[in-house]
């Protein structure tokens, strides 16, 4: 086949094309970048930490990949893997909550919207947590709240730092007030870790909104964010509808928030592990004994 025809044939080929705009991590072989529209081979993308080689767009990353990216090789040891949500309110609007849970488990292969465990980052003992947006928008119900709280408590008990990578639509409405109260519970646990003077670093990934942003996610000693990540309390659509104003350029992106003094640094994913390790070096490397009466 002449080379020109080959190109034409290739153009006409029906690829399995998904984009991060669908909210899902792509499962096809070929992936279209949501930003520059380049078609990318999924294997290359995965090896490159899900960052587009053409435009540096950061794809959403699932929790297992995130753990693999950040934890020192072989250091991760999952905790509370069997801790799961139940349906305390017997919530049934549009579809039963139990059905949403079953579907999320099947789709993600996870039991809940966050993975937590002991790990090392750059040799530092940490408790590492990563949220997974595929699981009901990584919303926080009782189980996520409990796992986050236990992560802080485990860190205090074992004198570890805490590193949490967040991505969430907010509190999980299917558990009603039990979900809202997880905001208070996780914030309380973060505050206790702070009192114990153990480091907590958060990484705000796309998208982090609602009750997760307005609780433990931003209570870290150092708050990092990924390039382009949407971070805020109210979602941009709600803000637009409420205020009837057009939103400023880049509204609620990580860069926008850094400009407004809300995050310490926007860190490209390829630099994330090293940055975390360096920050932990500093926060555990003081020459004056940390502590004293609190």
């Amino acid at each position, binding site marked *: 086949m002449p080379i020109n025809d080959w190109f034409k044939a290739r153009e006409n080929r029906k690829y399995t094309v998904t984009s991060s705009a669908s909210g899902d991590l792509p499962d096809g072989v070929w992936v279209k970048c949501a930003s520059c529209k380049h078609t990318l081979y999924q294997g290359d993308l995965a090896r490159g930490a899900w960052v587009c080689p053409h435009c540096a767009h950061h794809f959403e990353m699932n929790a297992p990949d995130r753990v693999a990216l950040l934890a020192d090789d072989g250091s991760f040891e999952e905790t509370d893997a069997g801790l799961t949500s139940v349906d305390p309110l017997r919530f049934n609007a549009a579809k039963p909550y139990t059905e949403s849970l079953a579907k999320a488990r099947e789709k993600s292969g996870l039991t809940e919207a966050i993975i937590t465990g002991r790990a090392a980052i750059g040799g530092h003992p940490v408790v590492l947590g990563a949220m997974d947006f595929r699981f009901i928008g990584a919303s926080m119900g009782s189980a996520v709240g*409990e796992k986050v709280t236990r992560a802080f408590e485990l860190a205090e008990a074992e004198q570890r730092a805490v590193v949490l990578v967040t991505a969430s639509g907010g509190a999980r*409405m299917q558990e009603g007030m039990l979900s809202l109260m997880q905001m208070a519970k996780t914030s309380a646990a973060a505050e206790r870790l702070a009192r114990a003077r153990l480091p907590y670093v958060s990484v705000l990934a796309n998208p982090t909104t609602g009750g997760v942003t307005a609780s433990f996610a931003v209570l870290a000693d150092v708050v990092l964010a990924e390039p382009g990540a949407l971070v805020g309390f109210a979602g941009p659509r709600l803000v637009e509808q409420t205020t009837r104003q057009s939103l400023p350029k880049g509204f609620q992106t990580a860069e926008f928030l850094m400009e*407004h003094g809300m995050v310490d640094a926007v860190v490209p994913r390829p630099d994330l592990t090293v940055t975390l390790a360096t920050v932990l070096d500093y926060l555990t490397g003081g020459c004056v004994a940390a502590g004293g009466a609190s």
Partner: protein
Amino acid sequence: MARHVMDFERPIIELEEKLAELKRLEIAGMPELASEIEGLEAEIERLRQTLYAALSPWEKVQVARHPERPKTQDYLEMLFTDVVELHGDRHHGDDEAIVAALATFDGRRCVVLGHRKGKTTKENIRRNFGSPHPEGFRKAQRAMKLAEKFGLPLVTFLDTAGAYPGIEAEERGQAWAIAECLATLSDLAVPVVVVGIGEGGSGGALAIGFGDRLIMLENAYYSVISPEMCALILHKDASRAAESASCLAMTADDLVRLGIADEVVKEPLGGAHREPEVVFARVAEAISRALTELCGSDGAALAEKRYARLRAIGVVAEGE
């Protein structure tokens, strides 16, 4: 002023209007209507009993939002004396959607916080309808720390549709301001008594909305999301809010059942706005009881207990 009528009470209002008409005719010289009037009065009373005695969650939301319902400002004026309002967050401005004050309750010095809705449109615009910006929460946090520093118990009143979802609010860190309140409140070493008097909208309510006691008025609600927003997300239709309200477990009774609220203060038939003085007395009694139980406790022990209280909230399964 035209009376605010909630949809579900229309049948009563219609009968009341008919009753008024009959009474006019009677006075105008038709005494034979007396027995009819009596019958209608009895019917209205019966209807009122059945309607108000079993309000659905969505109807309770209507009552909680009733414009004549007693507001934080009323409780502050009726229950407290020697009030000194504290303005400003020391960073950006003074958010009138939240009031902070030094105030005396029954001889006891306190710090009071509350969402502050207005009573008139003009006042509501100034107070942003009780929906705070970050500076409101930062003022609240400042008042919390003040309470702790000087050993003053904190009493808070919840009445907000939620934190304001605005452009400036996001720019100034709405989420950050709320989170800081949560962290500060969680281990504040003084008694914290929370009273849900009207709307308890999500994170904006929670920022000053948990402590050692949660007292809920019978028709107040407290919810992770507004019923309208929930309906919009689930059904793409905000008008199905009544259904959502029933699913969200947001009423005072629900909160007690879930182990989040401690007690429910009964309201007069038809809602707190019908007989505010009765409500003030009952709320005063509940606050008094809570403060008597809590004041005199060691601050650190209080914070420890509060953590245990939060720690127990949530229902999960633990398997292999």
